[in-house]
């Protein structure tokens, strides 16, 4: 396993974790752009643009793009988040050159008006699909309530109205502002021919003009809030909570992952024993999401509507007990075993390593090996976990519920509507 990196004259960086023992490799173009870089007039444009990259380039039609990926046997896709748009392919080693050429071509899409109009319908279908599924886009509503004016408050998908209102010209302008070599990097993992990768990316991308894109990464202060949305057609009540947590470059993010595991992993955690094992809630979990400049603890639960108040009270009691009485050495050891095993098991597939290598480069311009992650997890002490709980109290959170119940009360009762 060897880390290698290279930077082109125009600023485009190439990073790779090369593993000669792997059967395959994964390669991706990571664009440092997402919902947090949008404004009200272009809400949803990053994700829409990701779809448009597959609709053709000066060299290829949309059919050509789809056929080319399939011909190389690629497992390919793309995704857009709050802070990145990633295009990737998992392929066999002999397909490295073909997949890099195709992915690089996608980074220069034609953005044709007629394709834009057809794809707009697909995006709207995607939004409507999520509107029909739990939590009925309440996650977007909660993000807006929690982050308020912060750039991370923005929806990745946008709304039917914001997508309908977008013009192809706005997308072209956004593309010109964000898709430059100084705002994109190439990451690869697995059986990578790195010298060939440098040679090829240089030939394909060194003429791309720089864009000097900027991003604001302010902190996001914690605050209490509560809202309940009535949705008669839902059979269950869904409870979502957000609270402050370490950001992607914070050293205490490993302690945060362990806290989330101890309190809210989907098996063996305090929420699991109190709520799921007992059959009170169908799900109850806590996770940690990290962004540049801000992080989130994100709790999710669903239960029968008439149980929602007691579930909310139980979750709050779990937070309070952790903050006041701490956690045990045994819980910490169990969580470390679990998280470390997941890191090792997840690292076997090159495509998983791609997202780890790319994710670290995106947020910190740092390479972290599997061993680095295992060491940092192991090094977390009980004191550090308790300091984290004091610094990022889960009991100060913004709560949103959605479902058929009209009788959901905030816990603690002093929480105000945000």
């Amino acid at each position, binding site marked *: 396993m060897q880390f290698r990196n290279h930077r082109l004259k125009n600023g485009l960086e190439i990073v790779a974790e090369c593993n000669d023992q*792997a059967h395959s490799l994964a390669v991706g173009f990571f664009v440092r752009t997402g919902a947090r870089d949008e404004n009200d007039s272009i809400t949803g444009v990053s994700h829409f643009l990701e779809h448009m990259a597959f609709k053709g380039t000066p060299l290829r039609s949309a059919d050509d793009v789809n056929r080319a990926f399939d011909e190389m046997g690629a497992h390919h896709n793309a995704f857009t988040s709050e802070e990145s748009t990633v295009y990737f392919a998992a392929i066999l080693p002999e397909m490295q050159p073909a997949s890099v050429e195709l992915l690089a071509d996608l980074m220069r899409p034609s953005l044709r008006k007629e394709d834009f109009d057809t794809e707009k319908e697909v995006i709207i279908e995607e939004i409507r699909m999520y509107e029909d599924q739990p939590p009925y886009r309440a996650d977007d509503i909660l993000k807006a309530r929690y982050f308020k004016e912060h750039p991370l408050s923005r929806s990745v998908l946008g709304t039917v109205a914001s997508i309908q209102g977008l013009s192809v010209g706005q997308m072209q302008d956004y593309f010109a502002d964000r898709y430059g070599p100084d705002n994109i990097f190439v990451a690869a993992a697995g059986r990578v021919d790195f010298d060939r990768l440098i040679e090829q990316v240089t030939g394909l991308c060194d003429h791309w003009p720089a864009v000097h894109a900027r991003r604001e990464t302010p902190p996001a202060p914690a605050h209490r809030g509560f809202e309940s949305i009535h949705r008669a057609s839902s059979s269950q009540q869904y409870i979502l909570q957000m609270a402050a947590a370490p950001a992607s470059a914070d050293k205490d993010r490993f302690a945060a992952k362990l806290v989330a595991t101890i309190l809210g992993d989907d098996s063996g955690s305090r929420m699991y024993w109190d709520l799921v094992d007992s059959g009170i809630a169908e799900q109850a979990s806590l996770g940690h999401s990290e962004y540049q400049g801000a992080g989130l603890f994100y709790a999710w639960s669903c239960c029968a509507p008439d149980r929602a108040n007691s579930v909310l009270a139980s979750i709050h009691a779990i937070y309070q007990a952790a903050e006041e009485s701490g956690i045990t050495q045994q819980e910490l050891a169990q969580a470390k075993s679990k998280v470390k095993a997941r890191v090792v098991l997840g690292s076997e597939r090159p495509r998983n390593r791609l997202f780890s290598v790319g994710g670290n480069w995106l947020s910190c311009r740092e390479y972290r090996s599997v061993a680095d992650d295992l060491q940092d997890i192991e090094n977390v002490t009980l004191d550090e976990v308790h300091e984290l709980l004091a610094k990022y109290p889960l009991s100060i959170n913004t709560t949103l519920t959605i479902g058929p119940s009209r009788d959901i009360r905030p816990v603690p009762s002093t929480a105000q509507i945000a």
Partner: protein
Amino acid sequence: MKRFCPPLAFLTPRTGETPVTPTIFTHIFDNGLALVAEPSEGAESAAFTFLVPAGCSYDPPNRAGLAGLVCEMTIRGCGTRDSRSFVHDLEILGVERGESVGIALASYSGATIHDHLAEALDIYADLLRRPRLPADQLEASRQVCLLELASIDDDPVHKLMLELRRQHYPDPWGRNSHGNVDTLNQITIGDITRFHASQFQPNGTIVGVAGKIEWPAVVDQIGELFGDWEPVKGMALETTENIECVRHLEMPSNQTQIGIAYSSVPYRHPDYFQAWGAVGVLGGGMSARLFTEVRERRGLCYSVQASLNTQRDRAAVLCYAGTTSDRAQETLDVLHQELVRLGQGIRADELSRLKARIKSSLIMQQESSSARSGAIAHEWYHLGRARTLDEISRLVDNLSAESINAFLAAHPPKDFTVLTMGPEPLELPRAVS
């Protein structure tokens, strides 16, 4: 104890560009339990899958959901461990585990770092043979199952596809393992212990193990743990004759969900790979016909797919699309048109793209111990043997447009089961039953 050595399939290791395909070892114990294992040099993990003949097809009709409730009860303590120490000990070993209940089988799987495999298998022997099935946890377990059942109502795609299977397959093969509220509420602790006693048994149980493992150690340990497990006579299948069929389920949603099913050939049929190839041309990859015609050309939906769902003795192609209600009729018409067109044959270029995807999938499957332990166990279930990835790869190589078209001429998509769900029913295309 009898041993089948040397292994069923042995390939001389090769060097060079193509990674070596591992060897598969098998052993059948006197009590009927089958062990299938595939060591992999490059892995750091080891994974296991237990397939137990305890699927929901064995549920008595007035106890629908029993297999699922038994599965939930088995993870609430076993042997010397109560439910907390069961979970705790597995988590200290770093075992990522999962349980599921299907039509014929219940599956218990886990993966961990290789040097913890032996201890994990010890715990799973307790789980399968000596679960505590604690009566004082029946109500909590029942609540878990009732909540899972309720969650389906909020998941339109899942709900549609469960109902499509129920209507397409003859009972008990289309059952939903979640059962229903009335039958779940009737299940007693006696039902649980009886089901466990008759279905959790070596005859029909398959163990798949893969990753960084030593075959002699694995076969010895499985022998010690399960060699004296007594086979018993399992429960008889009870079927319900009258399956109520509806064409449309009312739902106040934005989108209309469309499901279409038609019969195909199962995994152990000699023509399975022909059927698989045909479905791949229809719904595999972004250059496949459904994605191209329904989403890319017409922008009718975000999600459209087709897959071949195989049981041991029957199979069906299941197609799905979800779209805004005012465009649902067009989507159904285009879907139907593409299914009929598939019967007219495929082109060689479509097949060559599909082969490229399948072959890279097969090679990438070797990078996951979990995927391999499940795959070899299921191979054994379907075939009574487990093929290496090289053997499967050769079967894929042998596919041709001519062979698939001959299959399609003999088995054109027809006799469709169509189900829609949304605010308004749709008009069925002609020739749709």
